[in-house]
């Protein structure tokens, strides 16, 4: 739980306090407009939209990275904390109720999806890197398929050699029954996400089971197979966890753009049917 300790350091506490203060000021102003008989929904709606725009600045900052507008790390922090504030303002904007129409349900659903995926991403970006670090050397995610193919080729070569040179069929049979499929692609993704070693142990057990049928040379080949299985498991671990760090963005980013489109429709409709209301 080192990430939790680092999460709750002094600067984080200060930033959260600032978020709380901003939220309190917002609630106060919202209440003032409410008792002043203004349509406070337009106020808190536009405040919500402004917060979303501030959060979008992170994306724009990344695109103009060679211009001196502060580090992306700073904008990421802004993204996090304004995100918390946005959730609070959203709750106020919905009047603490579930939506009553299809469009509002869509808005509500997309907002919740974006928020939850963002929170999940923030947590994963703290939790997953230390996990990857503890599992041997860090592997470049994009190169995993290449390394996997190399391991598969080596395993196949050993299996073929065991038949041609070693006059044995146990290793080749194990390869065709189990190992061929294991090396063909990412396997046991869920187990690796929960850091379970059970599938790897089962596989190594199957490898160990044929050892009794082999001579000295065969045992040496089997040891190489064992090493390859462990290396492939390690690759799968990196694939599963490294993939998690990428996959969540495929939820967060498209949902954000869908949310923006829906907000635009929402704003147009609200103004179209708001004639005569005090703003």
């Amino acid at each position, binding site marked *: 739980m080192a990430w939790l300790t680092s999460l709750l350091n002094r600067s984080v506490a200060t930033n959260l306090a600032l978020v709380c203060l901003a939220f309190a000021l917002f609630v106060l102003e919202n209440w003032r407009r409410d008792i002043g008989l203004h349509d406070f929904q337009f106020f808190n709606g536009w405040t919500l939209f402004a917060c979303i725009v501030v959060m979008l600045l992170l994306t724009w900052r990344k695109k103009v990275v*060679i*211009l001196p507008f502060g580090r992306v790390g700073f904008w990421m922090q802004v993204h996090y904390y304004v995100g918390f504030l946005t959730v609070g303002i959203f709750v106020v904007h919905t009047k603490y109720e579930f939506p009553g129409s299809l469009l509002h349900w869509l808005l509500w659903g997309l907002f919740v999806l974006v928020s939850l995926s963002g929170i999940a991403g923030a947590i994963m970006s703290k939790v997953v*890197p230390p996990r990857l670090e503890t599992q041997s050397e*860090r592997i470049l995610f994009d190169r995993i398929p290449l390394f996997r193919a190399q391991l598969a080729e080596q395993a196949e070569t050993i299996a073929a050699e065991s038949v041609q040179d070693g006059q044995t069929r146990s290793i080749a049979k194990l390869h065709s029954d189990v190992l061929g499929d294991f090396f063909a692609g990412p396997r046991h993704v869920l187990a690796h996400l929960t850091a379970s070693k059970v599938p790897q142990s089962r596989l190594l057990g199957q490898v160990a089971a044929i050892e009794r049928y082999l001579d000295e040379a065969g045992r040496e080949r089997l040891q190489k197979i064992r090493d390859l299985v462990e290396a492939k498991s390690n690759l799968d671990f990196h694939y599963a966890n490294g993939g998690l760090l990428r996959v969540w963005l495929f939820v967060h980013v498209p949902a954000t753009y869908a949310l923006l489109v829906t907000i635009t429709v929402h704003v147009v409709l609200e103004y179209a049917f708001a004639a005569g209301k005090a703003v």
Partner: protein
Amino acid sequence: MSEPASEPLEERNRRWDEPFGDEPLDAGTVQYILSLPAFAEVDPSEFQSWLPLDQIIANDGRLRRFQPGEVILRKGDYGNSLFVILEGSVVAVPTRIEALGQAPRSVASWRRSLGQLFAGARPPEFRATRRRWRRRNQTTFPLAPSSGLGKLDVNDVKKRYPTVALQAPDVFGELAALTGRQRIATVIATEEDTLLFELRWQGVRDIRTSSTPFRQRIDQLYRERGLVGRLQECPLFGHLSKDALDDLARESLFETYGNADWMHRFKRERQVDVSRVIEQESLIAAQGDHVDGLLLVNRGFARVTERVDHGEQAIDHLSVNDIFGLDEIAAIAAGKVGVTLRASLRAIGYVDIVRIPTKLVCKYVLPGLPVHLRRDRRVRASEEPAAIKIQQDMMDFLVDNRFINGEKAMVINLDRCVGCDDCVRACATAHDNNPKFRRHGFSYHNAMVANACMHCTDPVCLIGCPTGAIHREEGSGTVVINDGTCIGCATCANSCPYDNIKMVDIRDSSGAFLLDSNGETISRASKCDLCIDQLTGPACVQACPHDALIRVDIRDSRKLLAWLG
């Protein structure tokens, strides 16, 4: 599918495609310069036919004119050239002049950065053809522009600081030209139209290589001025008078240890077992030996070790201006007998050492030496809080892999890095879609030293470059490559002990490889330039959303460890 290749379009770069001045010097000027005392004994027949002396002077030299008070060099800036005074005079000020401020940054502009952001996509490693490039550079000036370092009141400087007057035909700046290190003095013009001949470092190197008299003359100057300057830079000698420093410089010995080509063997050994590189390191002083003077590291790195069972444990590493043996000499001065060295000193690669006799250290250095400088580094290190004290295993990792050479090494905190590659994309954005590093490298615990140029203290990549294309930027000292003079020989890439320079084949605007007259592709060296021409500094650091990337001086272990957490 094979890459498209175009018809021959391009000539390969040659040594003097870009003369130091806007134009090569004319024959009359070259003859005049060669008649000066600094070059009078240089024999043109000693030079290779493809590297003639007059062409070196014409192309690697330029003329510069200064007015009274104009600053020619600034102490602390990195330099690549030596100067010969042709007319007029200058003063050298060994003390730092605060009014001059910091080193200038390279030119970066909003217009250029915006242009880069909105430029259309180009093929990787696109280069404009030479024809176009030459047209763009046809404007000529009779003299190179002045330094732009500002102007000072010479009389005021002379009153406030100790100065050394130099006049025609004296030479200055040889120390930085030879070592690629910082200037040790500020030099200011004192007369109207002071005319200087400036020779860039590759020219100095080539003349020095071919001509023994020139080498002896420059080395003598280096010894006379450089050593006193080096001693003045070292805090240990800060309390000494000028006479005492001169005495030390006169009696000290220059020694070199290790092999100048250490990087090739190191790269091989590193592939096998990096912990064994210690066996290649030359012994400078052995534990238990008689104390034979104070050792001052003048250039390069050294490892301090202690014997443990059947091996040697690295307990410290030394670099420029660090010393070895002071505690033992202090013990001798205190009257102890039978004092021997408590640790060994080994050369990491190639090391220049200045050996200062024990009796002079006792006579000049120890009396009046501030207490904090007298204390043993090991004792001081043992008193540091555990959080910022470098652990043995981390020290072994950094020293064995020789990362201690890195002044701007890219270190990635693997506890924070999510592998988003925003750093690589930012690097590509800053370099016309050509990333200059790999987000991969040697790692230990949560620290990964990525394959990005570390802008070394002792950049061995510079040594063999035949054209001087790879050089230190004046002022900042950043190691950069001049694409216009890189001939693609790969000497720098082969020399880099860390494999941080790659060779790339250049292309035209259609994406086809540019070919020379023999139909072969043309290569250029490519590496991190620390985004020297960007408004933001290194784009990789700017871009990291999780603060997982830092450019750091590896020897600043406090900063590194505090950041790694």
